[in-house]
């Protein structure tokens, strides 16, 4: 007998993208719709939670509708509804969670709460099948984590940031250099034109640690700009961007390679919005091209930033493993990936 296909409908509203998607068998995108609010947050220089929530509630139906239309499917074709339960902005999460509950109730479908970072990691499965054990470097506006997976659905955080996320540091440094929000892509672009001349620190923390810290580096950038102003010197933005990026990329790459070797992983997956960073991609590609026993997977840009296909992909595994949530499910801004 042929195995029936599994269709999971995913919803993601944890930050400033209203997104929905349908994924077949956990690996194939049937439809993927993302409505970004970035334009309306630009004037505030960052995501304003209340504004984000307002946009989500305005956009949700049109996003859900487009997702079904693009797929040419209905909810009666679906096996379950997966939704980001956390972490994220609580008011924003609640829109996706309550929309998901309404759909699950209306069509008597299973409801599955998904951890946002688990989603980011599973975005990779839409590109290449996972081989275990694997390691994922998750870098985004809100996260910098090294997650070890010995099998599907099992997540062990072996390293995380102790202060700022890498993406946060990028945004703050961009602001110091008077670059528009969001700053990451601008720094990446400037860095490509400059040289690592400012001698910024590499924060590695104690011997053997896989944790990260970027607030010291961020302060070093701010001090460099401040001191130059005091001395009447001109900062070369390209070089400062290159110096900052070199420090971030070097630390991320070094820790990822070391962990990949120590944990004997077969795959390294890059996940999260900062995975779009060319400097980081190039650095990882260079190092892992010499480490033949480890396969490096970097999803395309569209799957690195927040989307719902990744939530549906992670939801598929959880669905197959029998995870179900009830109608009393809540958004959880501090959800733990190891226990969710």
């Amino acid at each position, binding site marked *: 007998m042929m195995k029936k296909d599994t269709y999971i409908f995913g919803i993601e509203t944890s930050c400033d993208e209203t997104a929905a998607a349908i994924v077949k068998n956990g690996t194939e995108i049937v439809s993927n719709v993302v409505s970004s609010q970035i334009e309306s947050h630009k004037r505030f220089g960052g995501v304003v939670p209340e504004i984000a929530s307002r946009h989500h*509630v305005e956009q949700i139906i049109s996003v859900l*509708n487009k997702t079904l239309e693009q797929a040419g499917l209905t909810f009666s074709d679906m096996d379950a509804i997966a939704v980001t339960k956390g972490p994220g902005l609580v008011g924003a999460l609640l829109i996706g969670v309550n929309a998901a509950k309404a759909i699950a109730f209306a069509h008597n479908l299973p409801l599955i709460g998904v951890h946002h970072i688990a989603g980011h990691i599973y975005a990779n499965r839409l590109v290449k099948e996972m081989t275990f054990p694997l390691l994922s470097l998750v870098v985004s506006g809100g996260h910098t984590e090294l997650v070890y997976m010995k099998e599907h659905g099992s997540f062990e955080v072996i390293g995380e940031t102790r202060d700022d996320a890498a993406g946060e540091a990028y945004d703050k440094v961009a602001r110091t250099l008077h670059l528009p929000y969001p700053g990451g892509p601008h720094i990446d672009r400037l860095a490509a034109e400059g040289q690592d001349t400012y001698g910024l620190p590499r924060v590695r923390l104690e011997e053997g640690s896989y944790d990260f810290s970027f607030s010291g580096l961020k302060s070093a950038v701010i001090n460099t700009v401040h001191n130059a102003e005091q001395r009447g010197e001109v900062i070369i933005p390209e070089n400062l961007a290159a110096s900052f990026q070199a420090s971030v990329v070097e630390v991320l790459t070094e820790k990822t390679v070391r962990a990949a070797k120590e944990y004997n992983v077969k795959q390294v997956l890059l996940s999260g919005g900062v995975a779009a960073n060319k400097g980081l991609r190039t650095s990882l590609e260079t190092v892992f091209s010499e480490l033949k026993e480890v396969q490096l997977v970097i999803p395309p840009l569209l799957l690195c930033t927040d989307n719902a296909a990744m939530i549906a992909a992670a939801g598929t595994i959880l669905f197959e493993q029998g995870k179900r949530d009830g109608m009393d499910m809540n958004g959880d801004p501090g959800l733990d990936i190891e226990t969710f």
Partner: protein
Amino acid sequence: MKTLAIDTSTYTLSIGLADGDVILAEQVTNVKKNHSVRVMPAIQSLMNDVEIKPEDLEKIIVANGPGSYTGVRIGVTIAKTLAWTLNIPIAAVSSLASLAASAPVIDGLVCPIFDARRGRVFTGLYRLSNGTVETMIEDRNVLVTDWCEELLQQNEKILFVGQESILHEKTIAEQMGESAVFAGKAVPYTRPAALLTLGKETENNPAEVVPNYARLAEAEAKWLEANEKKTNGGE
């Protein structure tokens, strides 16, 4: 027509079910608890109780504010998603009109009040007559003292309703004297039956139903203020 009504715009959770003119069920819980956790289970158990399945529903009515931003969004999101996915009409009604319509008034002016902190309220003015509700002054976020001045111009007795009106009773009584009558304790919250009646004639497109916050987001208000200063050439 089997209709579900939802109001989560204050901490009171009001859910009602009707079949045509017959109210089948009303559920109100007036405790400060998390709406996001409780609304769907409450809807599920109430529908179960009166043996209505989701696919039996023919209309959804929702109170779309003003009120608690998060509360309003939870109710609106559930209501519009249900209406959209079941392909049935939705009616968005004012949370304040629903509270006003919960008053047992045959003929007269009713002023519903939700507290909005720092001397401000979400409020509006409604005329109830023979079961109809007419909007006299649109819903707004206003200082109680300014509001009383405006209400005095009606030259008519006004009934204040809603449990949070009690917080402002003293201020209102001082300013309005005998023009103000208080029923905050008798009409503490929105009755689901009032919602069900109020939304009867209205039909909205689910995608277009959005909360009425009656107030800009704080960040937006500040941004506008800063920009106004800029265009006016400084202070």
